């Protein structure tokens, strides 16, 4: 219990950053034409902020079904890195702990836990669940607040542009390193050039070129 509570306590400052994004997601979902139930249940089914806003973006653009699923797969791939790193701590736990632990995995819960798992005074799983459940509760409550707010907004006040701005906001943390900056700029330019390729293939071309540019840059730098 003590470990659970210290997980809650450590994640608390981060929750203050999570809540506004939940509100923004909820309001944007309503503005994008989803009904209340869809907006709320998306937060339960998907429970990943960036992915949910990406899905809204794709729904608005009427992207083909398969392309949407591929984009969702890509945006979530970063969680593979967290999962692999969590695996060593959670692999020997019960099945239900693993299933639930995976569901609750977020950038925030991972970041806080990865920091404290080396601390021998902490019981790992209760600590992780303290942090992860706090994120879950915050996300659901703030989504509900956003859905409520979205219903109050006047019709003509479109929140469309909030979606790309959210992607920019999520990019900020990456741009401290030059290789990420190069990847982002190459991708951006390529995206504008190849935007009109059929079936949104321009998106995948841009991502591929962005990754390639960063890899080439790091190779050249190391020689």
């Amino acid at each position, binding site marked *: 219990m003590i470990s659970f509570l210290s997980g809650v306590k450590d994640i608390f400052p981060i929750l203050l950053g999570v809540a506004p994004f939940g509100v923004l997601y909820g309001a944007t979902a309503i503005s994008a034409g989803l009904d209340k139930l869809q907006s709320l249940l998306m937060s339960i089914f*998907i429970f990943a902020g960036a992915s949910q806003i990406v899905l809204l973006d794709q729904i608005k653009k009427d992207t083909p079904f398969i392309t949407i699923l591929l984009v969702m797969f890509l945006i*979530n*791939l970063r969680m593979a*890195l967290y999962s692999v790193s969590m695996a060593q701590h959670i692999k020997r736990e019960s099945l239900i702990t693993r299933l639930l632990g995976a569901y609750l995995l977020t950038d925030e819960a991972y970041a806080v836990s990865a920091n404290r798992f080396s601390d021998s005074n902490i019981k790992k799983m209760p600590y992780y669940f303290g942090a992860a459940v706090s994120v879950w509760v915050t996300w659901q409550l703030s989504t509900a607040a956003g859905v409520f707010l979205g219903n109050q907004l006047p019709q003509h006040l479109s929140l469309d542009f909030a979606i790309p701005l959210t992607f920019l906001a999520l990019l900020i943390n*990456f741009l401290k390193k030059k290789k990420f900056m190069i990847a982002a*700029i190459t991708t951006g330019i390529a995206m504008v050039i190849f935007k009109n390729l059929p079936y949104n293939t321009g998106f995948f071309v841009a991502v591929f070129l962005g*990754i390639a540019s960063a890899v080439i840059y790091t190779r050249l730098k190391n020689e």
Partner: protein
Amino acid sequence: MNRSSYIWVLIIASGFITYFIRIFFIQFIDEEKINKIKEYLTYVPVTVLSALFFSGVFDKGLASVTFDNVKIYASIIAIVVAYFFKNGLLTIIAGMVAFFLMQ
């Protein structure tokens, strides 16, 4: 299928994909296997986010590179705010306010 059912299908399918990635790598992949592709994986989020950002600002591709596209000006303001304040929420608010004022 009507639009509402289609959105439900998308929400549920995306939920499955998201959960699949969370559980698959915890359960079936170990660190050694992933080390080979780890370098490439680290660039996925930044490139995906950048592609989505740019495709929102330049929604018609090269045809959106015009002086009339107020999203470009609003984005520049948002990027400046992002650079100086390193705060996501402030960036979004700055961009939205700039966008509404210029429209």
